[in-house]
């Protein structure tokens, strides 16, 4: 018969269980901290800016009078810039992801491209700003146009979209491919009929999240000169433009205290847009994941 060497001491076990409880509380508080900061930030901005938030704020151009100031041009600029950014980054990003996941042989070049993309994802936006300024604004003489801004943004979010699209494609179960191959489908048919439909929710989620980054992006657009007073709606991709975060930055730099509140009102709009985009992404993610 065995003799017990390991004596389990109830006290010791109780202590371990107590540590576990303490850990749980600490971990939860840490998690809560982030949410408390977020709440503080939101409450502050809302109380500051709510007074200026009305229909006129959305439909007026910027103004020297805080009560007349609005974000029409900034919203329009944001929409136009996104109009360039979305197709460019989505087409390039998804194409790249398809190549890497479906076609690329496992060789050095592929690994290099992948490493390169993940590096690009970490390059600070000011560096993209420098690139945009040098290449688009100056070299290709696009000036401080929507086109230059949109392309700069596209490059900025391209790596994020690639990564998201790759993940989405990779999460398609092998069985789906097998099913299609076993029917005699060719590679491109499989991409069209199996991969793209199945990866679309994931790609959309990633795209929305990266676009929300682009919508809030300030530094790189400041660098290509998007800080301006504009009281018209852009009519071509060569128009000058301003975007919401830059308009906010602009107001925040005004001498009049009232403009700080206008800036806060702008921040509310921006945050609402971003939270809506995030929620949309979450809805898509929750709705379409775990289907297999």
């Amino acid at each position, binding site marked *: 018969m065995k003799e017990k060497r390991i004596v389990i001491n109830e006290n010791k076990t109780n202590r371990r269980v107590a540590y576990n409880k303490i850990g749980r509380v600490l971990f939860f508080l840490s998690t809560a901290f982030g949410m408390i900061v977020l709440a503080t930030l939101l409450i502050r901005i809302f109380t500051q800016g709510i007074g200026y938030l009305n229909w006129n704020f959305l439909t007026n151009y910027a103004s020297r009078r805080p009560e007349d100031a609005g974000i029409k041009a900034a919203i329009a600029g944001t929409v136009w810039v996104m109009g360039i950014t979305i197709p460019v980054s989505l087409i390039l990003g998804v194409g*790249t992801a398809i190549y890497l996941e479906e076609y690329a042989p496992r060789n050095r070049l592929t690994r290099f491209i992948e490493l*390169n993309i993940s590096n690009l994802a970490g390059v600070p936006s000011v560096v*993209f700003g420098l690139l945009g300024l040098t290449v688009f604004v100056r070299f290709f003489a696009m000036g401080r146009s929507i086109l230059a801004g949109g392309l700069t943004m596209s490059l900025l979010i391209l790596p994020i979209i690639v990564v998201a699209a790759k993940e989405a494609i990779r999460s398609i179960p092998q069985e789906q491919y097998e099913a299609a191959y076993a029917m005699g489908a060719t590679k491109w048919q499989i991409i069209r009929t199996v991969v793209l439909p199945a990866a679309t929710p994931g790609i959309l989620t990633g795209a929305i999240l990266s676009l929300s980054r682009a919508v809030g992006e300030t530094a790189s657009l400041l660098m290509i000169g998007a800080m301006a007073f504009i009281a018209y709606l852009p009519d071509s991709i060569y128009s000058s433009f301003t975007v919401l975060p830059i308009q906010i930055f602009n107001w925040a730099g005004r001498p009049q205290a009232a403009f700080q509140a206008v800036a806060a009102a702008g921040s509310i709009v921006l945050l609402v847009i971003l939270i809506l985009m995030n929620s949309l992404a979450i809805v898509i993610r929750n709705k379409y994941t775990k289907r297999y």
Partner: protein
Amino acid sequence: MQPTIRELIKEKKQARSSNSRIEKTMPKVFFLMAAFSILVTIGIVYTLLIETFYFFTQVSFVDFITGTEWYPFFGNDPSFGIWPLVSGTFTIAAIAMMVAVPLGLSSAVYLSEYASERNRKIIKPILEVLAGVPTVVYGLFALTFVTPLLQSFIPTLPIFNALSPGIVVGIMIIPQVASLSQEAMNAVPQAMRDGAFALGATRLEVALKIVIPGSLSGIISSLVLALSRAIGETMIVATAAGSTPNMGFNPTESIQTMTAYIVQVSMGDATFGSTIYYSIYAVGMLLFVFTLLMNIIANYFSRRFREVY
């Protein structure tokens, strides 16, 4: 059974040679798209290099790399020693990491090991909103809320200081640390946890002794990525840290980071071709090199973490 479908299929097959053309061209098209990312990188490196080269025809490389004074704007006697900007950048990054590492990792452990599926589904997106708040908004928050708050504890704290934006940058990157680390922790197979639970381990013991060691390289890579984000952050620092390139690591001083310098110059619009104009490319180049290093390190770790199981 009459094999109508089979015959139809055979017919179609012969009629379609375009199919094989698509089959052959698509990979090439997609390859070009993938190769485009290399073109972008080359574009970045090329523009940075060319202008940096001009910069070093005007300023000695040795002075740049060893100098401890950064006074580019003083027309009579400018000095271009990069260290104040580097130290400013790392002061911010260090403060940010001191905030983000404990809070982010704790959140990751909570989300991955303690939270119910439902809570995780609610909390994670909320935390992710933190990463989505535009940096302009954070900048104002740092300057008009966090700094005054800190001043009530440290009365001598100047309005522009490294501490406040450092903390806010840290808050901004919490979700990055939390999400990526949580994903790394999730990748630890449930079987590992079951093994430990079956031996009578508590959740805390499972988290600290099984899950964290098991996902260490993923965690490190998330931290390195967060660090590189902190180094690259611009608007928060530009708004709230002041713009005095001070050498040293004093968090209560006003400082300037590499990124903040670049925006400062490009907003003031230094005359094209001036030394100052070229200097932003030299600083940009250095920034690029730093983040490149970070990413290579992060990549190394995340690769290791994939291979564990």
